């Protein structure tokens, strides 16, 4: 078996070529269904713009987000009486440019989303695969632990975890990831249970594939669609929860230009300076809305049951 005849080599090359074009066709099909949903395309465009804004924050932002202009406290936006052209969206109570803080804030929100989803996804998939693949006592134990996590409102549990770990952005992200993880565990487990007795899995097992190969290479790729949709929803949830923790003073700490923290700092000025409250929240809403639009589009494109309806 160690020798490979030229014929088999050619076959392998052909097979690879075929699988590549199949992948291309699948991607084209996915894009076809995704682009049918206009909202999803708009969401994707907004999301890409946000990413660009975060990446090039230092080039776009007109001011340093932490510099306090002592002669410009609570300057209203430029179109209002008293506004200054150098501060398009006005300044906050200590004279910092709100637009620049919002632009830098995009970095934090997207970073939070990426880190939280990565932790929750990797942890959730691994635990879910183990539960669904092993069954028995391991499965029961894991699922009971997940039930316990889900018995608490997510924000409350995150708050309590942050109280244990100490306030701060990193700890807030860990707490939110722990809280979001059970959804991935449940989804993965359900998908694995549906797949594990299928013929191709049995065939792979008979052919001698080990546990890890069966779990990660054979079964996992076929369970990805619902996980991708859930990951998108978790991305927006993570941003919302992190902003909520920041708002309650348990997330990113001032003077970090995180949007929720900015709102918390602005609270006492709500009746005097509407702009310090309005813009950070609007930024959160637009970001979360864009991601949820993409999520809806992904679900339509990846879920074959809804596709035909």
């Amino acid at each position, binding site marked *: 078996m160690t020798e490979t005849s030229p014929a088999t080599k050619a076959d392998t090359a052909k097979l690879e070529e075929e699988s590549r074009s199949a992948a291309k066709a699948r991607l084209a099909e996915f894009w076809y269904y995704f682009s049918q949903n206009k909202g999803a395309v708009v969401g994707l465009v907004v999301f890409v713009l946000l990413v660009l804004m975060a990446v090039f924050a230092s080039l776009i932002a007109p001011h340093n987000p932490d510099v306090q202009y002592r002669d410009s406290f609570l300057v209203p936006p430029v179109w209002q009486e008293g506004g200054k052209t150098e501060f398009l969206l006005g300044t906050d109570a200590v004279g910092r440019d709100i637009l620049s803080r919002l632009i830098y804030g995009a970095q934090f929100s997207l970073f939070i989303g990426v880190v939280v989803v990565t932790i929750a996804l990797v942890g959730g998939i691994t635990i879910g695969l183990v539960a669904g693949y092993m069954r028995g006592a391991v499965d029961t134990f894991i699922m009971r*632990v997940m039930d*316990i996590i889900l018995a608490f409102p997510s924000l409350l549990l995150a708050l309590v975890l942050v109280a*244990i770990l*100490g306030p701060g952005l990193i700890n807030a992200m860990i707490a939110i990831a722990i809280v979001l993880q059970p959804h991935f565990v449940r989804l993965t487990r359900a998908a694995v249970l549906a797949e594990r007795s299928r013929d191709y899995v049995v065939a792979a097992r008979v052919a001698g594939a080990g546990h890890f190969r069966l779990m990660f290479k054979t079964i996992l790729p076929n369970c990805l669609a619902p996980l991708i949709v859930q990951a998108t929803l978790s991305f927006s949830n993570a941003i*919302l929860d992190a902003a*909520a923790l920041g708002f309650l003073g348990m997330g990113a700490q001032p003077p970090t230009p995180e949007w929720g923290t900015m709102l918390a700092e602005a609270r006492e000025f709500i009746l005097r300076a509407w702009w310090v409250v309005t813009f950070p929240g609007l930024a959160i809403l637009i970001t979360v809305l864009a991601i949820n639009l993409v999520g809806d589009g992904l679900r339509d494109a990846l879920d074959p049951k809804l596709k035909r309806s």
Partner: protein
Amino acid sequence: MLRFLLGRLGLLIPTFFGVTLVAFSFIRLLPGDPLDLLAGERGIDPERKAELMAQMGFDKPLWQQYIDYVIGIFQGDLGTSFASKKPVLDEFMTLFPATAELALCAIILAVCLGIPAGIFAAVKRGSIADQAIMGTALVGYSMPIFWWGLLLIIFFSGILQWTPVSGRISLLYFFPQVTGFMLIDSLLSGEKGAFLSAVRHLILPSIVLATIPLAVIARQTRSAMLEVLGEDYVRTARAKGLPPRSVIGLHALRNALIPVITTIGLQVGVLLAGAILTETIFSWPGIGKWLVDSIARRDYFVVQGGLLLIAGIIMLVNLIVDVLYGLINPRIRHT
């Protein structure tokens, strides 16, 4: 049915003990021991500390502390608040009606608007009305409600001056609490204007808390209706010439509502999490604000007790929803 019920209860028991374990571990996982936290920066005399540790049972082995804790729970002892020196359960009981009143108003608002909106969107599928309703629902679903609350305050309390900014009722009114529900108590008191004041205080927080459940219920109702409207029995009902109203109301809606009821049940967790933010914004004296304040002032026995009670409520409501679901839908109970 009995077997189904017992099965559900059987699943609940390990979860309940898990929840007690989480609440129990919470205080022990905090950096530093509880008494150092309590003493704060002033510090505490070692002798007095040992005495207090023994008094509170912190010197016993962990497993025994846990058993004592669980026994205490069954006797209604959830610890004592550092700040008020009152039992946690008593504090909870005084504050809970405020949260319950707010949450009930919010869920009623969400159901009364969400279900009709979802039905309408499904029936008029693809129309501008459908797109507008679903667009609004997605915005509501994506809403950072703490910001939404602040916006409403700016507009309705700041600019229009229609509603008060905080609290449950104007300080002008004072009457005994009978039910703990301000709307009912103010009516019972017979004081002029008290009921109106309670309503005006309740409106904005209810809208804020209802926003996400409303969006979820509208979306869920629409998709459940769409699924049912494509079924054969609906087509049959149409074919035999029934008016659209009875096809939608009688044949479609009753079946579409089954998943919607589950969704409504699941909103309890969303409501309690939302109450944390809503009550903080509107200074609403309920358990959400109580917990946030307690975390801020490190009153950890309150947090521990609150965790347990809130998880208990959510588990109880989920059980009730499960049982209701089994009652409506026999297919579930026999699987």
